[in-house]
């Protein structure tokens, strides 16, 4: 396996320029550069529109590879860039003491210890389908995953730097599974055989220092854990132990851990005070569905170029409105709707995208998401709270807690737990599982149970309970 050789570049910041791990990273990007770097536009030749229908139906898939950067992506790239560099600032492999210190620290990592927050990592929480994973993958693609150092400032030094590693939280939320998964991913990136090397190590007490040590040996820059909401299915106490593990890794190894998940994860993370503090290291990123403003227009304009129907359909306000109405600013739905509409236009010989076509495709293809999209459309937050994968403004949850102080602990929902940090301390045995969808009215639902559904939003807005996205950043 061959690795990318380190190419040290100076940026003018002394603390960056004297650190081989940072100066070997690609340069820090301006917003404009980030847009260009993140943007991914598959090849498109207008001539493809004259090809036979069966071929064009395949060509439409190119839309899946398109990435149109929006302001939230630029913000995320900036946060990630700051996070990874901040993590490297205290790690200098040319320092003779670095590896011994890393070994010493790795041996101290424990699920039980209570270290104070170092605030290096951050969390990205977003509605399902908001494009979190795609965005993270695009950002990670800006960095080589492995950099090989052989000589730095006249000094022979062999070091293989692992810049990032992305894992998915296991479905059962088990720490052991994530440790093995970590080693497998490291092997995949470096061509090593750590998983085999430690096949006889099977207890958590053995595995945890191994993960920390491996991260330290390869100066892992950022550990990204996707689908963190799976932790909600962990055994009792499992989710807080897992989050504690990430805090320990961040603090002891100076290695930022970024947690990515749907809002279902918020309740889990907020219950852990230290994790909540840590989340604020680079500012927490919360992604709602895209509002119908210029962001939506940018997304549509980026998409619209990729038309495979015989006739080019201009992007009109009507089409934009219909598409938004059908997908409610959820990018995944928007892209799929656009694709499927084209496929249907081609297969039925209509060869043009019309509002009626979009509505008909939405009706057929987004069948299972209909109730959810309806709730979003009608701003029915009491219903929305039943969907664990959707962002509900935090103001609702706070209000819900204030109004229902006597709700038995066992019946608390994820939403109410989101703001009950103090409560967590006295609730050691609480189950992390929050079966919102199966427990009938939730905290938010109880607040609004008596309200007229259509006017929920305006009433809450009047009371100042709806947090603005910028305030939450």
């Amino acid at each position, binding site marked *: *396996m061959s690795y990318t050789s380190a190419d040290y570049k100076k940026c003018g910041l002394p603390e960056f320029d004297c650190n081989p791990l940072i100066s070997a990273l690609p340069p820090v990007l301006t917003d404009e550069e980030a847009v260009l770097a993140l943007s991914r536009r598959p090849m498109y030749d207008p001539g493809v529109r004259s090809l036979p229908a069966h071929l064009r139906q395949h060509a439409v898939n190119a839309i899946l590879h398109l990435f149109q950067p929006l302001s939230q992506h630029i913000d995320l790239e900036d946060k990630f860039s700051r996070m990874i560099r901040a993590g490297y600032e205290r790690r200098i492999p040319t320092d003779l003491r670095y590896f011994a210190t890393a070994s010493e620290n790795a041996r101290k990592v424990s699920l039980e210890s209570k270290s104070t927050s170092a605030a290096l990592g951050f969390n990205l929480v977003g509605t399902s389908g908001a494009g979190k994973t795609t965005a993270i993958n695009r950002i990670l693609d800006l960095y080589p995953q492995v950099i090989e150092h052989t000589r730095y400032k006249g000094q022979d030094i*062999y070091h293989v730097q692992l810049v990032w590693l992305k894992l998915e939280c296991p479905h059962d939320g088990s720490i052991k599974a994530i440790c093995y998964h970590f080693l497998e991913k490291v092997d995949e990136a470096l061509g090593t055989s750590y998983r085999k090397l430690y096949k006889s190590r099977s207890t958590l007490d053995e595995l945890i220092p191994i993960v920390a040590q491996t991260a330290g040996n390869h100066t892992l820059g950022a550990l990204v854990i996707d689908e963190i909401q799976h932790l909600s299915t962990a055994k009792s106490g499992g989710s807080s132990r897992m989050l504690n593990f990430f805090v320990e890794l961040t603090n002891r190894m100076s290695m930022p851990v970024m947690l990515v998940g749907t809002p279902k994860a918020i309740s889990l993370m907020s219950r852990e005070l230290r994790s909540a503090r840590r989340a604020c290291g680079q500012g927490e990123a919360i992604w709602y569905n895209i509002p119908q403003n210029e962001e939506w227009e940018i997304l549509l304009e980026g998409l619209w170029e990729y038309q495979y129907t015989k006739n080019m359909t201009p992007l009109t306000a009507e089409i934009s409105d219909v598409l938004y109405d059908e997908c409610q600013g959820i990018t995944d739905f928007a892209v799929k709707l656009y694709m499927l509409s084209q496929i249907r236009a081609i297969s039925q010989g209509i060869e043009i995208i019309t509002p009626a076509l979009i509505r008909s495709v939405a009706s057929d293809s987004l069948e299972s998401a209909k109730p959810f999209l309806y709730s979003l459309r009608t701003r029915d937050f009491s219903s929305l709270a039943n969907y664990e994968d959707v962002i509900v403004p935090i103001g609702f949850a706070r209000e819900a807690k204030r109004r229902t102080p006597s709700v038995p602990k066992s019946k608390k929902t994820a939403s109410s737990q989101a703001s009950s940090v103090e409560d967590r301390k006295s609730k050691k045995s609480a189950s992390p599982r929050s079966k919102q969808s199966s427990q009938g009215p939730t905290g938010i639902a109880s607040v609004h149970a008596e309200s007229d559904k259509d006017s929920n939003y305006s009433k809450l807005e009047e009371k100042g309970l709806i947090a603005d996205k910028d305030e939450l950043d």
Partner: protein
Amino acid sequence: MFPIFPNPFPDELLFGLLTRLSHSLLHPSQSALTTLLVGSSKVFRPSIFFPSDFDRVLGNLPGNHTLGKIDLVSKHTLHPLFDQDPSAIRYLGKPKGCYLFSCESCRKSDASEYGIAYWHRSHQIPGALVCYRHRTPLQWSLSNQGPHPRESGRQRFLLMPEEIEWMYSPPEAPGLLTYRDDYHIPSGTKFDKCELESWFRFHQFSQSILSGVSMIDDYCDIVWQRVSDLDSDESYADTIRKSVKSLLRRSGREIHYLYRLPRNPEGAARAVLETLYGPIRKIYHLIFLLEALSIVPVRAKSTEA
């Protein structure tokens, strides 16, 4: 492939690099580590002098690794003591029941400078009993299994100096090395200053050979000449002279008897020299000659007094 082979520290033994690798991997099992190092689970006993399978270890390193074989052999093994041509590598097995040596002061200074105490090549020179840097006696690993002691039924493999226990003399020769105040060593013990001084010099010579600056042949010639000039009536000097001559022709087997050298040069050396060759053999000549030059006159004086 294992892309985390440590970058060597000054005077670090190649064997020590393997222990540091093992330490940085949280000591995997012996078979797992062997598979990692040499690509198969074949029994691999890393020798203290020069790991015999090291070609395979080097072959497993990433292509751009800065470690070169010749460099490793000449700077991080005891090979130069036996042959000063690093390309003509002789593979030396670990003598059975071999102790490892370490200096307490070096361990402290390593820990503050490098964050961890490591295995020094200069401490493992056969027969070296005094640290050439600190003039302190070397400590002996508690187990003569070297750094492979068994712990609660599970063999721990390739340990760092801080992970094993140390003692100041081997159990079979209690009180062999004790010190005087001028050597910064615990007081209240007996030690012959000349004895220590001569071993210190021995270590210095050995170290100078390792670092490639020694003119050992010249030293030998000069010292030999002076021994020859000694008064032939001096019975002790004569004994030494005879011993040295005869030892060159005799055979012996186990080099770890070297610790007996200060007390019983003749017997120890007889047991030793046959197994040695190359520059180190000359060092032993030299040390006997130094014995003759320094110890004898002192003893002669004390006899006179």
